[in-house]
């Protein structure tokens, strides 16, 4: 699988800021997922679908985890200047995130990374996400639906309770189909049949995916079948998020040249 950087030209975007953002809410949602809302107008004004922030899971310098945690911006309220982050509790950093209460301040750096860039004439979008990877896709689905584009979202998860984004899609009027391992509906071959049947007569002109290598391979196959652009958001361990620490280079290590930095060249890449 080849991941290509998006076009060399970076579309107009705001520079990242570092803010101590007041926490507006931090609540348990379901399974291992929590929703965090930050008062972050400096980030909310410019953030674009697929971009992320670095969150520092401690309020005191020198205490707590040594590295910030990369998190996609799940949704944004541009009028109120708030951003929502949906996070899964995995290890120490995300456990510490659950301790923040409204009124606390959380250090956040963003918006970071390159957003999804559908072709300018794209109006039919297929969005395929699994597990926590869905968080990188929700804003794309919403903003495109608001423009009147035809957006279909597939949400895959281990079991019903672990499928996130369904309520969000309902609320923003996007058609979402839920698939889970429990009843076999998330099986890649059944998804392939489903999509071929639905889209062969009139293929999408853009596919976005995140959260599963197998779904990524499926999207690549379908993209070739329909000759449409496929983009994926990938994960990497990060420290700076800005492109200077070189901690996030992912993929094959060539002899002379470093593979692309996920934080600065990605996290969204073109799939070919």
């Amino acid at each position: 699988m080849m991941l290509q950087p998006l076009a060399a030209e970076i579309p107009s975007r705001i520079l990242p800021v570092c803010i101590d953002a007041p926490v507006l809410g931090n609540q348990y949602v379901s399974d291992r997922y929590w929703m965090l809302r930050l008062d972050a107008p400096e980030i909310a004004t410019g953030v674009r679908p697929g971009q992320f922030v670095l969150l520092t899971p401690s309020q005191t310098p020198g205490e707590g985890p040594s590295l910030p945690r990369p998190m996609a911006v799940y949704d944004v309220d541009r009028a109120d200047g708030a951003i929502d982050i949906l996070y899964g509790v995995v290890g120490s950093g995300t456990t510490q995130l659950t301790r923040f209460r409204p009124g606390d301040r959380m250090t956040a750096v963003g918006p970071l990374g390159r957003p999804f860039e559908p072709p300018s004439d794209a109006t039919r979008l297929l969005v395929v996400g699994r597990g926590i990877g869905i968080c990188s896709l929700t804003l794309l689905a919403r903003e495109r639906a608001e423009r009147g584009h035809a957006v279909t979202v597939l949400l895959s998860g281990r079991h019903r309770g672990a499928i996130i984004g369904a309520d969000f899609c309902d609320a923003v009027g996007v058609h979402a189909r839920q698939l889970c391992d429990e009843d076999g509906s998330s099986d890649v071959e059944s998804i392939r049949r489903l999509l071929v049947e639905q889209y062969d007569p009139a293929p999408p002109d853009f596919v976005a995916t995140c959260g599963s290598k197998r779904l990524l391979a499926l999207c690549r196959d379908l993209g070739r079948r329909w000759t449409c652009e496929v983009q994926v958001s990938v994960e990497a361990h990060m420290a700076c998020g800005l492109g200077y620490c070189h901690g996030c280079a992912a993929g094959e290590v060539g002899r002379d040249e470093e593979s692309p930095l996920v934080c600065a060249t990605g996290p969204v890449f073109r799939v070919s």
Partner: protein
Amino acid sequence: MRATSSEVVDVDLSVELGPLRLSNPIMPASGCFGPELASLLPLERLGALVTKTVFTAARSGNAAHRLTDSGSGSALNSVGIPSPGAASFRSQVLPRYSAHGTPVIVSIGGLAVDDYFSIADELSMAQFAAYEVNVSCPNLERGGISIGADPDQVYRVTRGVVDRAAGRPVIVKLTPNVASVDETACAAEEAGAAALTVANTFVGLAVDLRRRRPVLGNGTGGLSGHGIKPLVLRLVWEASRAVDIPIVGCGGIATTGDVAEFLVAGATAVQIGTATFSRPTTMAQMLDELPTQLTDLGCRRVADLVGSLQA
């Protein structure tokens, strides 16, 4: 009499690293900084800017994962020093550091003693204030043993770079992975180093329990962050008593109080690495707070605090 914070009067933050005079003692640690920070941090306020270690030839660096949070306030990295090579460093990278009017310290590395001489030769005509020699690199001619662990090789590398430095001060950044930091510190001093940075990262390992593999693609990595602060304070204290040249403290510094502790332990200046990742504005905040910190400790100059540990 102790001054209170309300009476911050003309505190002199300037420091001297041999012939290198800096407006203040705060600078970034190599590899934990880049001109990309310019929108988040006023780079012109820093005492100096330190580049990522550059090698003569282009290098790709190590496999993923290259870094991880390793608990207890520490991070482990095996970035492996990807480098654009000397030529493209000179034409593409260095100008972005020089654009801020702050003294630029170029960190150089090598995988054999001669590599250090080549890179120094290749950079001799470029414009920058000083060298920092990163000797914590594996020597591929000697089975990968760190050059910085052997006082003889530290001497040879330092001497060779001093000879090629065209008068620029040469700072040698020591490795902490030695039985006695005094020996390598003295070797660098004898060879003509203007100052010593103490220190680079401690070798460590993070285990992925489920896969029973190292977390990092490279296996081991370098431990940094607040968790290593007591270990480095001790090295700074020891090194500062072993040599007469100034020490730049580096390792685990996250707050202005930490800066002051390093100065007391014997550092003349400090470098901030891992702390910048979580809070890119850390160094600016330290510069805001340092005058009050010094005043509170009854000092009017940084030099009043340096090496004042009573032990």
